[in-house]
């Protein structure tokens, strides 16, 4: 386990009630968030789950076969998340919506005290770890976070967000929970999920791989009926004039919803199948890696907002998807 503490309830003299006792200062993120990746981040929800599972001492990759089933959905690629049923089968984790009808810090402390946690949508305006992304104190963007620890009296929150574990306090704490101050009332409560770890056995080793193997077959069988990159390519050609005429924020929003989502999903998929199938999955993983690289190239080229011919890159993406799916079908047959 990162940091070496048992994955059980921790209560400290400081008033902090927490899940694992991990310290943000010494926390080591999962390798999916390490250097050497084409995409160092996926999406806010999946990134949080990767780190939450990792912090619990289980292998997050087991739950990421879902990345193989993503589709181009007309104007965006699937916002992928580990399937709740996969998390339950693999780790005995049950995630479902919670009713935030009382002050959230109280609810979080109570659930942590019972060995559970919350995933909650927070306003990244108050999340100091987003300094790098420049949303801290500059932009109101909803972002999922999982509560690792909370000290309501001391106004401290430890939370998994993005690629790591962080802590906020004081004014940020009051802001993120909308305590005191002059907050407008026409804001809905945040979407909040309860995460329980007692819904079944938490598999490890060969048992974990065995179930993940079954799930991989299911995810492969529910992939799009035809090549999603062909449809994405056709839409991209239609979108290009509008994107080239737009501003930088239009580009970033488009890139996040399309190439970043697809590229990060298929890069994770490649790592998933290598973890699960070893060398037998290497050719498929390489094909999936070409998808990630192709998406990255498109990200950069779109960012220039100058006319370009995307045909060659789109051809690479389309053929790599076909190749990867064919190889994986053969690998699990």
């Amino acid at each position: 386990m990162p940091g070496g503490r048992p994955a059980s309830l921790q209560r400290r003299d400081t008033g902090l009630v927490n899940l694992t006792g991990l310290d943000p200062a010494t926390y080591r993120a999962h390798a999916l968030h390490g250097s050497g990746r084409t995409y160092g981040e996926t999406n806010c929800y999946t990134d949080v789950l990767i780190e939450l599972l990792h912090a619990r001492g289980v292998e997050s990759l087991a739950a990421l076969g879902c990345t193989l089933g993503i589709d181009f959905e007309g104007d965006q690629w699937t916002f992928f998340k580990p399937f709740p049923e996969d998390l339950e089968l693999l780790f005995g984790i049950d995630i479902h919506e919670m009713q935030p009808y009382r002050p959230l810090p109280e609810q979080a402390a109570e659930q942590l005290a019972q060995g559970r946690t919350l995933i909650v949508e927070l306003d990244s305006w108050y999340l100091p770890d987003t300094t790098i992304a420049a949303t801290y104190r500059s932009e109101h963007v909803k972002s999922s976070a999982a509560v690792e620890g909370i000290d309501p009296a001391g106004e401290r929150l430890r939370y998994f967000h993005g690629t790591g574990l962080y802590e906020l306090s004081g004014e940020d704490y009051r802001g993120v929970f909308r305590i005191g101050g002059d907050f407008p009332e026409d804001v809905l409560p945040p979407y909040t999920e309860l995460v329980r770890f007692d819904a079944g056995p938490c598999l490890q080793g060969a048992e974990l791989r065995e179930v993940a193997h079954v799930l991989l077959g299911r995810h492969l069988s529910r992939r799009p009926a035809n090549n999603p990159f062909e449809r994405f390519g056709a839409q991209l050609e239609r979108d290009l004039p509008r994107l080239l005429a737009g501003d930088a924020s239009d580009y970033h929003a488009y890139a996040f919803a399309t190439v970043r989502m697809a590229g990060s999903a298929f890069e994770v998929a490649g790592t998933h199948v290598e973890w699960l199938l070893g060398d037998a999955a290497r050719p498929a993983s390489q094909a999936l890696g070409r998808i990630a690289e192709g998406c990255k190239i498109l990200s950069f080229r779109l960012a220039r907002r100058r006319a370009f011919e995307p045909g060659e890159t789109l051809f690479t993406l389309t053929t790599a998807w076909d190749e990867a799916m064919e190889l994986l079908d053969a690998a699990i047959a």
Partner: protein
Amino acid sequence: VPELVTDEIRQIIQDHGRLPIEVGTLAVNADLYQVGLSSHASVNVMLALEDHFDIEFPDRMLTPSVFESIASIEEAVATLRPEARVS
């Protein structure tokens, strides 16, 4: 790579990389992603490098490894702008 080019690259990373550290003291081989360079910011660094040095990175160079350190960026700029090798 001339010192001037290295300084210009440092300044571009400082202005567009959104790093929580002073780039001026960063080792040329330090991993920029490890010190906080996001995907979002790496795109802005790439655009600023192209503008400043009047170059265009070919597709084969549009990879994270090209933007992972000051040294790797220096190498890429020197490849695309051979005169940058001459001090």
